[in-house]
Each structure stands twice: as C-alpha cells, then as structure tokens.
C-alpha cells in the first residue's frame, strides 16, 4: 500500500451536504492502493476537467461476448493499480429484490476480486461491479455462477431485461412483469451473452401505463401492461376522496385525455369505450378505481437514445395481447424480427431506426404481422404511396 495518502481537496468538498456522498463511499476503503489510485485519478479529472479512461481491446470471460466493459486508465504509470479497471455487469434478479444473504454473497466476491465499488444499479438494470483486472474476470465469474448469478449484456447483443416490481408490490400490474422478465431473460441466454445482432436490443417490462421502468423511452421492445374492459369503480371510495378534498371534476375529469368521465357530485361515470388507459384517474384515487379484469399488455417497439439518427420512443407494435407463459406467440414474433433485422440491419442500427429505414409497412409484411391503425398516430399525409404494381389494371 502506498506510503502516504493522496490529497483530494476537490473531492473532499463532496463529502459534506445532506445527500449521500459517493466520495464517502469511495473512501470506505481509502487506504487500499486501488482506491488510492482511483481517488487520485478522479481528483485529477476534477482538477483538469477531463476524464482519464480509455476504451481498449475487448475483454471478457470465456465463451461470452458481453458482460464486461474493458476500461484502461490513460495515466497508467501514475496510477498503476487502476491501469486496468474493467466493469462486470451482473444480471440483477427481476424487480431488484434481494435477501441480505444474497447481497452479502456478492459483496464477499467483489471484496475478493475487485475494487469493492458497485452501482446499485446500472441504468439498464444490472448490478455493476466497478473496477477489476483481466485476470480476476474468470474467478469472479466462477464464484458468481456458483452463487447463482450470471452476467448481463453488453455490446451488440440482447441487453439485460428489466422490469418494475409489478405484481410483487403493485396493485396496478396488469400482468406478471417479474415472471415475464425472468422468462424472457432465461429464454435468450445465448442472445444475451453472445453478441450477434446489428446493435443492442433491450427489453423492459412495465406492469401498467405508468411505465415505472421507462420502457417506452429506453427499450427496443417495451411491454406495457394494460386492460381491455372497464375500470373498476368503488363509488363509495370516490365519494370518500371527494369528501377528503379531491376536486374530482378538476383533478380527475378535466385531466382525462379523452374527457370520458362524468362526475355529478355523487357518482362517477366512465365511458370506458373512450378510455385510453392512461392511468391518471386511477393514480389519483387508488382506493376508488382499479384497472379492469381483462388484462394484458401493449407491446411497443424501437425506443433508443439519440445515436445515430436521433432518439426514439417505442411505437405500438401489438395494441393488446394476453401475457401468458410460455409467451410462444410473442417469442415467435421476436425471432422473426431478429432474423429480419440481423439480415438487413446495418451495423449499429437499432431496430427502431431499421423500421424507419425500411418502412413500418414493409417491416410488418416481412414478419407477417397485419397492420392496424393503432400502430400509428395518423395515416400518411404525403401522397408518395408505393403501390408496387399491386393496383390491378383496368381492362
């Protein structure tokens, strides 16, 4: 261990204040050589206003193409203990539920083989083990699998799916998000661990249109719970809300996107045929209103961040489907999507950009799905229709 502690005056300023401090976290084992170098390099970044990490050669564990992000310091001589400082992505349990024992197992492994620094969790959902060297990768992996954990995704593969806590702790979950997340994750272990796609492919499972895992913004395939029948109304509880001071007209009816609710002061009437399942009224009166019983999900496709063609939100792919294991129909569609995308997708072209390039109509035709008007906000306004010779000749 290094002679004397490095001074980190800038970082030290971030130890104070009411919000939990990542600097305090880093200093928990400040005396170790690794942490000394880690803090040292970070302090340098704070002084110089620039990062000091490089991405370099692919590193990983045997037989896997993903799950490890190779990182190297560009100040290797000065900070030799973090010259190599890779990230291991560990696939989190669905819904991020743990027992204290499970967490301790992971801590013990990471204490032995890495920096002891983690992210709980990475923004895709993985447990992030932050900082180790190439030789430590295999042993870490071995102990993780022994403990029942496996790696998550990285690179052009299926990425670690994630989901909201759903039916485990939410009255609004319209399908079993954790069950589905686990099932799909297990079904696609090969795609998850061995990059074979044009680019990454993310799945997120949200139990209702509140979308607590931001799937519509962050997943190439978003499973958003919804229902087909009527909202369940407990009129007594509605009146109770009113009594407790909720202005039902202003706070609920007027904010309904389709204005499909009527409140006469004692009775709340919902024209369910015009309800677009936005959740607002239910959100405001959780005791009075509940999603209907005929539940399932809307499957949406194509969300992504800006690179390359600009950010996209997912768009409707299947307006409503029952979410029942083993989800054969859905998996059948997914494989057709992957086949098409793998064959015609350009390198680093997300499926959402692919669909826009080839055209949604063509895409649907290729995977054999009927177009329905729910897939669009509005029909085309430009007259550039490709009839492709399908208009019969008049005789």
């Amino acid at each position, binding site marked *: 261990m290094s002679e004397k502690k490095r001074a980190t005056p800038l970082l030290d300023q971030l130890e104070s204040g009411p919000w939990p401090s990542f600097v305090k976290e880093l200093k928990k084992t400040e005396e170790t050589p690794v942490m000394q170098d880690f803090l040292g390099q970070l302090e340098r970044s704070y002084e110089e206003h620039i990062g000091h990490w490089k991405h370099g050669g692919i590193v990983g564990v045997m037989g896997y193409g993903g799950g490890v992000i190779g990182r190297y310091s560009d100040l290797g001589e000065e900070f030799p203990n973090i010259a190599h400082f890779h990230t291991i992505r560990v696939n989190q349990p669905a819904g991020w539920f743990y027992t204290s024992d499970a967490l301790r197992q992971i801590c013990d492994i990471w204490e032995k083989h890495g920096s002891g620094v983690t992210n709980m969790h990475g923004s895709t959902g993985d447990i992030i083990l932050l900082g180790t060297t190439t030789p430590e990768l295999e042993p870490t992996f071995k102990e993780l699998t022994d403990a029942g954990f496996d790696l998550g995704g990285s690179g052009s593969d299926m990425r670690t799916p994630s989901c909201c806590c759903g039916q485990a702790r939410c009255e609004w979950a319209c399908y079993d998000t954790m069950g589905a997340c686990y099932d799909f994750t297990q079904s696609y272990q090969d795609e998850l661990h061995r990059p074979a796609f044009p680019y990454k492919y993310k799945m997120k499972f949200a139990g209702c*249109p509140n*979308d607590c895992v931001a799937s*519509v913004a962050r997943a190439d395939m978003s499973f*958003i719970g*919804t*229902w*087909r029948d009527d909202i369940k109304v407990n009129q007594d509880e509605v009146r109770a809300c009113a009594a407790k001071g909720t202005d039902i007209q202003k706070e609920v009816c007027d904010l309904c*996107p*389709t204005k499909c609710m009527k409140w006469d002061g004692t009775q709340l009437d919902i024209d*369910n*045929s*015009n*309800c*677009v*399942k*936005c959740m607002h009224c239910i959100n405001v009166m959780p005791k009075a209103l509940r999603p209907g019983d005929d539940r399932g999900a*809307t499957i*949406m496709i194509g969300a992504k961040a800006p690179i390359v063609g600009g950010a*996209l*939100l*997912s*768009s*409707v792919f299947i*307006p*409503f489907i029952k979410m029942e294991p083993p989800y054969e129909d859905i998996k059948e569609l997914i494989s057709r999507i992957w086949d098409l995308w793998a064959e015609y997708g350009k390198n680093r072209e997300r499926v*959402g950009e692919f669909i*826009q390039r080839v*055209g*949604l*109509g*063509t895409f*649907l*035709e290729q995977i054999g799905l009927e*177009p*329905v*008007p*729910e*897939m*669009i*906000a*509005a*029909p*085309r*306004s*430009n*007259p*550039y*229709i*490709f*009839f*492709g*010779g399908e*208009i019969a*000749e*008049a*005789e």
Partner: protein
Amino acid sequence: MSAASRVTDIGPPHYEKFLPPVIKRNYGKWLYHEILRPGVMVHVAESGDRLFTVRAATPRLLHISSIRDFAALADKYCAGHLRFTSRNNVEFLTEVEANIDPLVADLTKLGYPVGGTGNAISNVVHTQGWVHCHSAATDASGVVKAVMDELYPHFVNMDMPAKLRIAFACCLNMCGAVHCSDIAILGVHTRAPKIEHQNLPKMCEIPSVVASCPTGAIRPATVDGAQSVEIIEEQCMYCGNCFTVCPAIKINNAKTDGISIWVGGKVSNARTEPKFSKLAVPFLPNNPPRWPEVVEWVKKLVTLYATNARKHERMGEWIERIGWPKFFQLAEIQFTKYHIDDFRHAGETFKRSAQLRHG
C-alpha cells in the same frame, strides 16, 4: 407594333375602381354579418349601412357567355357590382334588400344555385384535369360535377356540423392545394413512368431529371448508345415530378391511373391548428363520366361526418376526438400498409404512446 409603344408591368387594375359605393363608404368599418339564408348574407357597417351578398355556385370553367350573363345580372340588381370568391363562387353585392329574391330566382333559372355559406358544403377548389393539363391522372371538372350533383343538397342547405371543405387535384402537384382539406380528392398515378429514350437527350437536362426524383429512383444510364436515364421501379412512387421536368418521361397510364381520397385537413386557425389531410382511400378506378366509386365514397364520408361530429367540429377535429382506429372502423375502410407513412418523416407518424382504446 414596336416594343416601345407596348405597355408592360402595369400590374392588375386598382381594386377601388371595382368597389360598390357602400363598400367605399364603409371600407374597414364593418360591424358584424348575418347569414340570412343559405347563400345570402348581410354585412352591417358601423354607419348602419347594410351590404347584401348573394352567393352562387359556378363550375369555375366558365364560357364568356356565362360571364356576360353574370354581368347582366349585376347590372340589373347590383349597379354592376359583383365578385368571385376563393372557392370559385360568384357573389352579387347590393344595398337593396328587395333585389335579393328576384336575383336568386334569376340565378336559379340560369342554373347557378345559390348557397355555400356558413356550414354548407361550398364549391370545390379544383384544377385542370384532362381539360388542359398534361400530367392529369384523371379529369377535374368531371369528378367535381359528378360529386357536387350528389352533394348539391348540402350546398343549398347549411346542414353540416361545421365547414366541410372539399378540394380536388388531378396529380401530386396538388394545384388544388388538397393537402389541407376536410375531404381531398386526388388523382394518382400508380405505375412508374415510361421513358422515351430517343427523345430524352434532346428534350431534357439529365442532371435536373435525376435531381427531380424525391426518392432518388432515377439514375443516369446509357441506353443503346445514347445518354439517358433509368428508373429503379421499386423506388418510384409515381409522383410524376420527372415528367414535369422532362416531357420525354411519360407518367400517364390509361389503365392504372386513378383517384385517392384524403380526409381531415383544415386551414383555419379556429379551435385547432391547421392540419394536413390524411389518407383514407388509397385507390379508386377512373370511371368516367360519373366516377361512381369516388362519388359513393365522398358521400359516405360526408354522411359519416354529418351524423357523428359535434357542432363546430371539423372533419379532422372529429376524427382526432374519436381516434383514427374508430374512424377506419366506422368508415369500413380496410387499414393497409399504404396508410402507413414511409416517406422522410414517417417515424413522426407512428403511435408512440400506450394510450389506446381497447374497447
């Protein structure tokens, strides 16, 4: 005649010469208007003066003898004053309320129905068609006549929930500016054009031909020795723009040209912002002289709108309230891939929310 003695660039005559005295007196000082009955309006000025307007339909394509008839009526009832509207109607302007009834009677006798005001279906903005344009995929005047013969009751009665504006254009150039109409009738070509390679080099500049294609379907090519172009048929969506810049490229096709119908556009800023028309019926055959399929579809859409929309609600406002899926269902239009935009900003038209009716 030498160019010197020639007058040029005088521009249009000054409008003041043509204004009736009551307008000159009250120019910019009108207080309000009332629609007295279909086609008849009164505008009341701050001064108390009243100007009566009688609006009659014209076929837009007018023979000078009819224009002379209008002139005669204007002399008879309006001290010679009349105007035309931005939708091809003629308007007679008088201060004399008593002139209204005889004027209406004369116009009706001449076959120019009085109406088109308020929430009536007014005249159809339209274009040349086979009457005078080279790129027409169908005729303009004929389709308009066939359609309006059926919609006539809605011209002489103000029985729509709001204004319902119909426009027609005979090719994608859209001279009728159909791109923002409640109901738009649009002639469409549906096959890639044929190239007359022998004429092309003589008649056209190859670079501008190549540049003219919105989808980049045209590339230079040497055809039996001569410099010409070729069209990648899969990339062509038959806009005819290459034909517009190069007569040697023939877009017209007797067998496969036809008509598409678009809905829900508007221009005014009233209530909602201006909207483009959206595709409803991708293709209907050219079936002159009365285009029964087109007439049926337009009637169906008008009736659907009239029976379902709320007061003051334009076609597009109604559809957006009930949602496009419901519209396709009510109109019994089969939703196809053609309805899904696949041009430059296609992605912007996808439904990017789980807000859906599942009922």
